[in-house]
């Protein structure tokens, strides 16, 4: 005798299998603090949105791109000139990459100036900084893929910097290049990093970052907390769904508008095909987010005391990165008092260094 089962009901069928009621209940309880700085909360979401755009357009580009020195440049040229909307997809991919790094920087500095890295959010900060590093790695690896002159020399310089690392530098550079110099093996490797290794690591870390944001909720700036403590009132809250979510959606539309306009008005150029036996062209410079270290390297003399300037530069960047990553740990003293001025000073100094040296790297 066959077992009798209940006929599926419209709402009940999914409810029984997915347990959506708990998700609805969760969304109904989640709130976002409302204060004068709420605007900055949107930048993390915009960065996530641009990352999704990257995944989608990158997947489309994969349908035509060929990762070999003989075909890479021509395949991108084919995408841009023969494939319908190819120029738009490639342009959106490039512009979105740049805008994503920009919004990630804005998000990071807003976290610094609003003190959102405070206990217990140290791991959220760490995962966020590593995600920014991964975004830069995406930029560096993706830059080589069209195999044009500028990307070729940028990769030569970038991988040669890795060679300056004491003890393991030569092996590290060799690992990155897939050989002794930048060539076909490097292109294949960078393609692998760009479409498989980095997305895999980023997805895991991104989910961790979002889970941590979820666990700890949105941070309110200390100044806002203090004001409300003095007046005795609680910080007003906005329901995450639908209020904040719909506002975030509008921010995404805004980002999409900017992205579409940039891609259509300023299509990303392809440049000249890389020739390993041509000199580096005059006026060569990296993408804007690498301009500050690029200009710094230009300024460091060939030798500083007994050390090569290149090594000193690399050591300086490494120490700066380490100091920045450790921000939540030195932002409080041993008595647990926040070093507010130090953090603001460090943030302003870093923004100042990046802005000034990027401008100098661009204009000089």
């Amino acid at each position, binding site marked *: 005798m066959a077992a009798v089962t209940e006929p599926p009901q419209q709402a009940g069928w999914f409810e029984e299998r997915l347990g959506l009621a708990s998700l609805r209940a969760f969304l109904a309880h989640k709130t976002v603090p409302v204060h004068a700085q709420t605007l900055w909360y949107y930048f993390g979401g915009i960065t996530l949105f641009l990352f999704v755009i990257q995944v989608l357009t990158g997947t489309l580009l994969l349908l035509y791109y060929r990762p070999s020195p003989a075909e890479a440049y021509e395949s991108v040229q084919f995408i841009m000139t023969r494939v319908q909307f190819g120029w738009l997809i490639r342009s959106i991919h490039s512009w979105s990459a740049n805008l994503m790094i920009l919004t990630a920087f804005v998000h990071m500095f807003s976290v610094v100036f609003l003190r959102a890295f405070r206990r217990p959010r140290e791991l959220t900060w760490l995962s966020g900084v590593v995600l920014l590093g991964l975004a830069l790695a995406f930029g560096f690896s993706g830059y080589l893929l069209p195999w044009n002159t500028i990307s070729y*020399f940028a990769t*030569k*310089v970038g*991988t*040669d*910097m890795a060679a300056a690392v004491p003890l393991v530098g030569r*092996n590290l550079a*060799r*690992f990155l*290049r*897939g*050989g002794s*110099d*930048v060539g076909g*093996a490097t292109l294949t490797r960078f393609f692998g990093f760009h479409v498989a290794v980095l997305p895999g690591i980023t997805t895991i870390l991104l989910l961790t970052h979002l889970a941590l944001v979820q666990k700890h909720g949105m941070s309110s700036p200390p100044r806002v907390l203090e004001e409300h403590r003095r007046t005795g009132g609680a910080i007003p809250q906005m329901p995450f769904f639908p209020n904040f979510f719909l506002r975030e959606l509008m921010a995404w539309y805004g980002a999409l508008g900017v992205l579409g306009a940039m891609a259509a008005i300023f299509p990303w150029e392809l440049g000249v095909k890389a020739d*390993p*036996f*041509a*000199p*580096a*062209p*005059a*006026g*060569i410079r990296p993408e804007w987010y690498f301009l500050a270290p*690029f200009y710094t*390297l*230009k300024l*460091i*003399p*060939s*030798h500083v005391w007994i050390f*090569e*300037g*290149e090594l000193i530069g690399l050591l300086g960047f490494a120490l700066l990165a380490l100091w920045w990553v450790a921000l939540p740990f030195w932002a409080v003293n041993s008595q647990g008092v926040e070093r507010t001025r130090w953090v603001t000073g460090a943030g302003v100094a870093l923004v100042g260094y990046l802005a000034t040296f990027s401008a100098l790297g661009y204009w000089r």
Partner: protein
Amino acid sequence: MDEPRRNLVRWLLGGGLSASLISFLYPAFKFMNPPDVPEASVNEVSAGKVQDLKPNTGKIVKFGSLPVLLVRTTETEWRAFSAVCTHLNCTVQYKESSHQMWCACHNGLYNLNGQVVSGPPPHPLEAYSVHIRGDEVVISRRA
């Protein structure tokens, strides 16, 4: 009585797990390390005809897998250097206006002896020998 046995089992399980992990990771790491691909050793290349390069000009010549910068300084004088900048591996070019070799990446300048004049390069450029055989320019490694 049970504790030593538990510890032994823990060690065996932990050790086995670690050994399996190493046995998976070791080939993966070895795989990522690019193999040495020996290239035919090049000691001499032809850089074309004498009349192809005017005085006070330079050109990049393929020397095996490396770029070499050949410079004709005067009617009769020729020089050749590795075109790989000793700073960060970019390819240098000859600057006719200043009679120097220049790396556009970080503004490194070398004189016509390959010595660093200014900028961040830490070492001089490696020099090559140039010979004229009939009307052919030949670049060779220095002994």
